């Protein structure tokens, strides 16, 4: 062995400090914690939708299905991103794409309905409320997105671009999941267009911005 490699190793050994491994339960705890924080902030700042408090929350199947799909998409993306922080040859990270495909049924349904209803669809989606959902959902996603970015920075993702995309998807999905508990509109056109746009916008931002922060 070359002496400079030996002295290099000696330097690294001298720099060693005890560390806590990035185990999955720790990552999962941070992910769940960020979702709980997001919902609390949403409830305190915007308030829970009244129908959720006084009526049977499962009375509207569109609300339940859409909110559930966004939550599941957020969980799938979060779990995958946590897994990507701990590199391991032989482990695939492709399962999240199926969750995206399932959640894509929402904008797809809105587009199909839009074609059927022609020019009325955009206005029926309530664009004024929609912009609020897009903005607030994306902003609420910052909690989950920030937590995942912090986690990934400590880890060693071997595909920073994909990890950034997943961070964005997780942030957008969990942000709009939380905001859905406030948004009083259960129309599939509104949810399919504006709530999905919130996820798409976050995914784009995550893909563009996060890789710079987590590349190693």
């Amino acid at each position, binding site marked *: *062995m*070359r002496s*400079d*490699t030996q002295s*290099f*190793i*000696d330097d*690294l*050994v*001298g*720099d*060693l*400090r*005890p*560390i*806590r*491994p*990035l*185990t*999955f339960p720790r990552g999962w705890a941070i992910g769940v914690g960020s979702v709980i924080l997001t919902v609390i902030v949403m409830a305190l700042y915007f308030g829970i939708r009244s129908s959720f408090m006084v009526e049977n929350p499962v009375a509207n199947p569109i609300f339940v299905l859409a909110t559930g799909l966004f939550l599941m998409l957020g969980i799938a993306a979060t779990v995958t991103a946590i897994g990507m*922080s*701990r*590199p*391991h*040859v*032989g*482990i*695939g*990270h492709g399962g999240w794409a199926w969750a995206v495909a399932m959640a894509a049924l929402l904008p797809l349904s809105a587009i199909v309905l839009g074609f059927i209803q022609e020019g009325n669809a955009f206005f029926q989606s309530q664009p004024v409320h929609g912009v609020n959902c897009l903005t607030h959902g994306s902003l609420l996603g910052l909690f989950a997105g920030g937590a995942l970015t912090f986690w990934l920075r*400590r*880890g*060693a993702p*071997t*595909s920073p671009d*994909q990890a950034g995309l997943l961070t964005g998807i997780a942030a957008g999905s969990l942000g709009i999941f939380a905001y859905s508990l406030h948004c009083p509109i259960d129309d599939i056109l509104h949810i399919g267009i504006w709530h999905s746009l919130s996820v798409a916008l976050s995914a784009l931002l995550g893909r563009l911005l996060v890789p710079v922060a987590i590349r*190693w």
Partner: protein
Amino acid sequence: MIADDATMARLMALSQGGDRQAYATLLMECQKWLRRFYARRIVPHQIDDLVQDTLLSIHHKLASYDPNRPFLPWLAAIARYRWVDQLRKTYKSAETEFDENFAADDTESTIEASISLERMFSYLPPAQSDAIDMVKIKGLSIAEAADASGQSESLVKVNIHRGLKKLAAMIEKE
């Protein structure tokens, strides 16, 4: 003789707890393992730099190893990531001969074969792996690689670009 996976995993767990003696042993074993891992897959004069870069990454990313998992697949992922990064940075080198002291060990285990760099190359179309091998690993110029492969210079460049992109996307593929 390089330590086995169980030994290295144990050393790593101790290192994460701050045991410097275990860490020194682990890095020595990693250094030997990496030299064999990179054999024939990097221009010889760059091996020391690449090994040191990888050891530095190991040092900075110690937390990303989960002690409940095997060690070598983690080490291989770190090593592959650094190797692809190095290939992207590597341009023509005057040195084209390989040091036979770095020849791959013929007795490598099935696990090591599944995490090897050759396994990654096997997923690339021949035109792309050949172009990367000639230009990025053996140090030929684009023109020399084009002559040797019968491809145009622009096609060699395209194959290198596409091949490196694919390699970067399959770091953790077995």
